[in-house]
Structure formats: structure tokens, C-alpha cells
């Protein structure tokens, strides 16, 4: 329940439903009955945070424990923040309405680098000291997990504990340890030291980082018995892994307003630009029976009539058609529709189309990522032009007329010819439409080409690569436009969108940053920066001013080529893929050489050490 004080303010802000809670499925407990209160914070708006699967899994998992009460907290939008600051209302959790300073744990999920400024802002809105060193007692433990925890160095001054890898077990182990430490009257320092002994836990204050004269990292040295290398946690048996049978069902529309079922974790592909494809190795599937049972329970408990089958590449699920048939055996009669996002160009078949046809016929989206075959080989996006055209033909025959194509510009080894091939590939899709005899009659096709700017990320084969400068990226964007004009591609049939390269630049700085960026974050927070992922707020110039004030050159992080033997700021974290493997993959990229996927041939990434998943499937 929301604090009484905000009632008067709610009609002064947009979408007040974000701030009041009271949804079906929200877990209400008596705070007297629990030992540990956990504020699960998503550093973005309600509609975005509520769409995130990780928070749903962990929220239900924590609340299954009688001694934990986990509540949700989202970043108030600008208008609400203004009201809260003006009326002295601290950031509160939606279930109890209590300020987050009443909580033992304040947990953040790190989904994208541009949300970091919101984390600091949310702590300050909750009257919690922003810097770890200013928090002294055994409470207000600020923890964080999620993909960006793979290089958390730019925010180590603010977060006490990072969780690496899958959170289902390690989070509970740390919460249980805290409960014990609280009982035993231990200090915050004692608790943090004990926590650092748990696998998957990174306590940054227990490591010293030294630097070389050229600004690169010299060494990361553990102290007080902390492990030299921190290994990620992995849930190996997905069928037995916890999955909620109910969600908090929002009363206002959110971004992904449907039931979500995770069908497998990881990805066999190894596209060289894709961080998720390396962080979540090895691929671990759920069984068809498990998926069907979980989906059915979710639909019955939430009332949703749409299920999204979530994974990094749904058509790579080994039993995709049997799964869809099994699901439709109850979904069709119960008027539940299935959606299968993240379909690969080469995984799109008539069979799949028939099973998901019940869903509204929106457009189809494919991600060839690069325009030329040469570059697609270099980035290991194993998609061939004829496959794309075949798939489009199947889609057109199936009645679709709209195709969206996603590309990246600024990929390593990219030339201007590769860039020009982006709109030309779009044109070939249009040509395919007109050469399909059974195309929808009387309708004109529409192809949307979107190009985002490549951001090199840790734990990928491109982790050593410089990002293109913004000038080069802009030139490439213009080159696409020019190519369209030269080839007389009608803008009414093919539209071209490009993402602003400014945000990609800042993302590149923080993605591969080191601990010296903490002072940049802190200065940005003091200047009131937040919601950098939103064009309403983001200003690259404001960030340049911060970098300058801190005496830090952002291009050192974004645009510098690292040498293979450099100590990277995240080298003390182990996500199961070896540096030697990543280097081999990078060198193959330089030779424009693709690699087989995990099911075709093992490339020896290192994830086999987890003892399961795709590494042990029969080939």
C-alpha cells in the first residue's frame, strides 16, 4: 500500500498507477513475522521493470521463504521524483509503502549500463548513503546482479555485493548468511567477509586494483581471504530450477503485458558481438512437459491469454515444434495465444508458422546484423542470404507483408562496402516479395531497416576491439541513406531508422570501464543525472563535462584497441569462457571465418566444466 502522503500528489503526475501497488499476485506479509526485508529495485520505470523476467523469478523465490519479505521498487519518473523531493517523501516499496531505508537488503538488477545513474539516484531518494564506505551497520546491504555484473568495476564504490551468474541459489545463501550474522551480532565487515567465501559472490571492497603508467590495469589483489577469481553460479537442471507459478499482474499496461516462460538458458550460436551468448553458457533446456506445465499454471493463475516463450534464440530449442503442439493442445481451447520471439532467419519453418499463426499477425522481425556475407562470417552470425530470402518467402506466402531487419554498424572489420550492403539486403527482401507468386494480393510490402551502433562488451571475442568513433558511425549512417537514394529505393517501401550513437558511446565507456569511473558516476549523480536510457534526459555533452571535471578521457575506454595480453578490468571474474577461447574467436573474426555452433562442434570455450547442458548432448 502506498504512503498516505502521496495521495494528493498522484493526480499531478502521469500514470499514477505506477506508484500505488495493489496488484493481483503482490505478496503482502506482516513485517513483524519476517527476519529479512529485501527491496528489489529495478533502476527504470514501473512499466519496464515489471516486464523483466528476472525480477519475477527472484521475487517469488524469495517470498516462498517465510522469513523473507521481498518487495518491488521502481524508479519514479521525473514528474513523480520532483513531487517526492518537494514533499520529502522517501523512495518506498510498493507492497508495504515503507521507505527502502527500513530494509535489510536493497537489491538492484543491472540490465544496461545507462541505468547506473538511476541506481545512485534511487539510493539517495531512499535516504541511503550512496557510497558503500558511508554505510556502517549490519543493514542496508546494497547488492546487485544481472548481466552488467560481469564488469561491475565502474560502480564498485556504491554496491557492497555483486552476484555473478544465475541468482536462484546464491542470493538465498547470502540472505541466509545475513540472517545468521544478524542473530550472532556480527558486524557489517564480518558479514561481507563471510559472504565473499560463497561461490558467485564478489565483494569489491575486498580487492585492491593497481594501474600501469599507461592507465591499464596492473593487477587486482584480493585481501582478507577473498578468492582471487570469482566464479559465476549456474543452474544446471532447468526443470528442477525454481520457476514461479504466478506473477504480480500489473493493473496498468506494461511493455511486455503477458505471461513469460523461459524455455532454455544460454545460446549455442556464439555470435561474436553478443555478450549474452557467452555469459549464459552452457545452453540448458527445459523439457517440453516442464514448459507446458509451467505455462499452463501461469496462464491459470494470472489470467493472461498470451504466453511468450522466452530464450535467446527460440528456434534453437531442440523440441520447438513438439513443444508448440503440446502447448496448443490446451492453449487453443483456452483461447491462449503463443508468441515465439527471437526467431532466427534459418529457424523459421512452415511448421512453426502454423503453430503460432493463432497469434495476431504483426510484422516479422529478423536480425541479419550485417549486410554482407563476409561480415556476417566475421561476426559469426551464421545466416545466409538465401535463407533470409526463403524465410521471407514463407512469411509472405503466409500473409505477412511487413518485415523488420535489424543491423549493427561499427562492427569490427567493417568496410564501407559492408555498410552499403545493408540497404541492398533490404531491397532484395522487397524483390523477394514481388517474386513470390502467392504473396498477399493488393498489398504493398514494407521493409524497415534499423541500424544500431555496435558496443564492444566484456566476455565476448570483441572485448579487445575499439568502438568506432561517433564521427565514423555518423558517416556510416549517412552512407546507408546515400546508398538507398542511389539505388532508387522508395522510402515508402523501405524505411531506415538508426539509433543515436551518443548513448552507444556512453554505454561503451561503462561496459569496459574500470574502477576509476566510480568518481565519474558519483559526480554525474551529484549533478542530478538520471534516466540516461531515455532521450528525455540523456545529454552526452553533460557527460563530457563530468569526464572533464574528473580528468578522465572517455575515449580511453570506448575507442582504444586493447592488446591481447592486457589485464582487463574484469579478468578476476570467471564466466566459464576462457580468455584463450575468446582470443581464438577474435582471430577467426579477423580472417572472416565463422565458427560452428555448440551442437555442430565444440570449440572448447570452457563451459564444459559445469558438467551439463549442451556440452554433454549426443552429437
Amino acid at each position, binding site marked *: *500500500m*502506498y504512503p498516505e502522503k502521496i495521495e*494528493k500528489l*498522484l*493526480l499531478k503526475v502521469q500514470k*499514477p*498507477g505506477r*506508484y*500505488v*501497488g*495493489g*496488484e*493481483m499476485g503482490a505478496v503482502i506479509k506482516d513485517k513483524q513475522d519476517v527476519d529479512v526485508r529485501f527491496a528489489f529495485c529495478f533502476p527504470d520505470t514501473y512499466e519496464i521493470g515489471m516486464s523483466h523476467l528476472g525480477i519475477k523469478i527472484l521475487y517469488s523465490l524469495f517470498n516462498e521463504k517465510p522469513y523473507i519479505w521481498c518487495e518491488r521498487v521502481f524508479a519514479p519518473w521525473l514528474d513523480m521524483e520532483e513531487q517526492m523531493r518537494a514533499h520529502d517523501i522517501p523512495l518506498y516499496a510498493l507492497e508495504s509503502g515503507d521507505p527502502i531505508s527500513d530494509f535489510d537488503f536493497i537489491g538492484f538488477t543491472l540490465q544496461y549500463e545507462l541505468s547506473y545513474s538511476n541506481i545512485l539516484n534511487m539510493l539517495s531518494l531512499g535516504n541511503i548513503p550512496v557510497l558503500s564506505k558511508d554505510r556502517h551497520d549490519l543493514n542496508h546491504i546494497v547488492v546487485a546482479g544481472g548481466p552488467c555484473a560481469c564488469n561491475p568495476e565502474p560502480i564498485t564504490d556504491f554496491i557492497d555485493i555483486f552476484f555473478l551468474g544465475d541468482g536462484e541459489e546464491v542470493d538465498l545463501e547470502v540472505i541466509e548468511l545475513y540472517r545468521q550474522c544478524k542473530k550472532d551480532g556480527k558486524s557489517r565487515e564480518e558479514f561481507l567477509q563471510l559472504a565473499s567465501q560463497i561461490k558467485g559472490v564478489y565483494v569489491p571492497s575486498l580487492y585492491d586494483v593497481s594501474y600501469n603508467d599507461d592507465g591499464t590495469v596492473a593487477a587486482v589483489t584480493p585481501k582478507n581471504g577473498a578468492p582471487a577469481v570469482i566464479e559465476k553460479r549456474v543452474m544446471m537442471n532447468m526443470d528442477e530450477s525454481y520457476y514461479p507459478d504466478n506473477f504480480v*499482474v500489473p*493493473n*496498468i*499496461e506494461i511493455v511486455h*503485458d503477458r505471461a513469460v516462460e523461459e524455455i532454455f538458458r544460454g545460446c549455442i550460436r556464439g555470435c561474436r558481438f553478443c555478450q549474452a551468448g557467452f555469459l549464459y553458457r552452457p545452453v540448458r533446456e527445459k523439457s517440453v512437459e516442464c514448459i507446458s506445465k509451467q505455462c499452463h499454471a501461469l496462464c*491459470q*493463475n*494470472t*489470467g*493472461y*491469454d498470451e504466453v511468450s516463450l522466452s530464450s535467446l534464440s527460440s528456434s534453437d530449442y531442440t523440441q520447438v515444434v513438439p513443444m508448440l503442439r503440446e502447448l496448443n493442445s490446451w492453449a487453443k481451447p483456452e*483461447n491462449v495465444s503463443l508468441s515465439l520471439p527471437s526467431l532466427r532467419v534459418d529457424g523459421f519453418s512452415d511448421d512453426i508458422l502454423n503453430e503460432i499463426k493463432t497469434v*495476431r*499477425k504483426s510484422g516479422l522481425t529478423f536480425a541479419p546484423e550485417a549486410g554482407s556475407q563476409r561480415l556476417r562470417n566475421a561476426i559469426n552470425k551464421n545466416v545466409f542470404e538465401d535463407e533470409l530470402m526463403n524465410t521471407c518467402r514463407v512469411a509472405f506466402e503466409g500473409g505477412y507483408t511487413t518485415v523488420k531487419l535489424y543491423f549493427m554498424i561499427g562492427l569490427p572489420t567493417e568496410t564501407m562496402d559492408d555498410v552499403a550492403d545493408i540497404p541492398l539486403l533490404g531491397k532484395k527482401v522487397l524483390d523477394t516479395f514481388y517474386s513470390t507468386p502467392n504473396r498477399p494480393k493488393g498489398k504493398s510490402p514494407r521493409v524497415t531497416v534499423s541500424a544500431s551502433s555496435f558496443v564492444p562488451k566484456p566476455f565476448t571475442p570483441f572485448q579487445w576491439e575499439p568502438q568506432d568513433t561517433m564521427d565514423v558511425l555518423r558517416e556510416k549512417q549517412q552512407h546507408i541513406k546515400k546508398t538507398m537514394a542511389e539505388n532508387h529505393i522508395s522510402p515508402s517501401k523501405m524505411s531506415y531508422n538508426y539509433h543515436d550513437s551518443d548513448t552507444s558511446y556512453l554505454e561503451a565507456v561503462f561496459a569496459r570501464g574500470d574502477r576509476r569511473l566510480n568518481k565519474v558516476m558519483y559526480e554525474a549523480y551529484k549533478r542530478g543525472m538520471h534516466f540516461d536510457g531515455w532521450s528525455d534526459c540523456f545529454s552526452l555533452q553533460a557527460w563530457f563535462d563530468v569526464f572533464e571535471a574528473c580528468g578522465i578521457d572517455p575515449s580511453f575506454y570506448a575507442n582504444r584497441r586493447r592488446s591481447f595480453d592486457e589485464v582487463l578490468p574484469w579478468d578476476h571474474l570467471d564466466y566459464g569462457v576462457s580468455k584463450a577461447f575468446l582470443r581464438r574467436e577474435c582471430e577467426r573474426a579477423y580472417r572472416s571465418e565463422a565458427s560452428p555452433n555448440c551442437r555442430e562442434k565444440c570449440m572448447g570455450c570452457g563451459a564444459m566444466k559445469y558438467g551439463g547442458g549442451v556440452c554433454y548432448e549426443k552429437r
Partner: protein
Amino acid sequence: MKNVRVFYRKFGPCKYISHLDTNRVMIRAIGKSRLNIWRTEGFNQHAYITFALPLSLGFASECESMDFRVLDDDEDLSAIPARLNECLPEGIRVFRCAEAVYKPAAIDSAKYAVTLEPMNESEISNIELSEKWEAFLQLPEINVEKKTKKGMKTVDLKPYILAYEARQGEKVCFDLTLPAGSTLNINPNLLIQAFSDSIGTELYADITRVGIYTKEGEDFA
């Protein structure tokens, strides 16, 4: 097939569910309750529900209604409120279900229970606010700019105050009856905003719709 109308209260956090979102919440609740109701037959098939009179965001209500068609003529209507309540957030409570008596077009007026207070309590006392409100109501004309389909239009609200009754209380409390329905609908906030503008004080109004009536003054049923 029977045309059925359910009546529900909407309050607490659910005051902040917009009309469109209320539609979604109800469709999910019906789905979850497994009530067998008529669905649209187009490409995007969905449960078919309609609302007689939308409720503004931020208003509570004692008398909302929603219509749908049950497919089974023998459906036990008296069991429907409990079945739906199990599937709805706590701030929406269905209290009655019956066959629809009137068409939505029969709606003529609605009564609102209003509590007025200053946004900033130090600005004006409740007594002073009350005096100013009484004086405001005595004005011969209350002209406001109203958004219509043809653009902005000046409207005198005075004749639209169909009934008014002050209630006892520490704050400024009253019941107000205004025209409602699809042809002419007057939002109580229009009147309150006009008052707020006239005294130059920002106000907070707690508004609950307490009755919806036909031309003959019958409860909309």
C-alpha cells in the same frame, strides 16, 4: 445467451487504473474466472465487454457497471460476483450481477461525493475554504472553457448542477449531481477547477461516484 450487467466498487489503488486499463484488468479476470462469455469473432478474438459510463482516472466509485453476454442461459448469476472477485485486485469488488434492465443510453445523471481540501494546508483554513465555496455556488453564472469535439467552448455550469447537498464534516464535503452519459457529461473536476481558479488556491478533491441515474431518476440497473 443473456445480457448481463455486473456492478462493482472501485477504490484505493484501483482508483488509478485508467478506463482502458480497467478494460484489460476485467478481460483478464474473466479469463481467469473461466466464465463462459461471448467473444468477438474477428481475427483478434477476445472476451466482449462494455462499460456503460467510463470513470475518470483518480475517482473512486460505488456504482460502476460492466456488461457482457453469458453463453449459457442457465448460468447462475448470483455466483458471478464471488467468481470475479477472486480474480480481481482488491480495489475492485463486484457486489451484484443481474440481467441488464436499462440500455447505457438511458444514463442521464450521476452523483458524486466530494471532499475538498487545499493542496497546501497552510494556505487556507477549512472554514475559509468552506465560506468561499458557498459564495462561489451563489454566483449567477459559472463559466468554464470545456473541451468539445468542435474545439474549446465556453459553458455555464450553473444550470448543470442538478442537485447539491452539503455534508457535515471537518473538511468541505458535499454531494453533487451532474449530467452524465454519452451525449452530455459534466466532470465534477470542471466545477472544482473553476472554483480553484477563482480563489487562486490549488485544491485537492477526493471524488467518489455514488450514484448513476436514468432520466426518471431511477438507479441505473
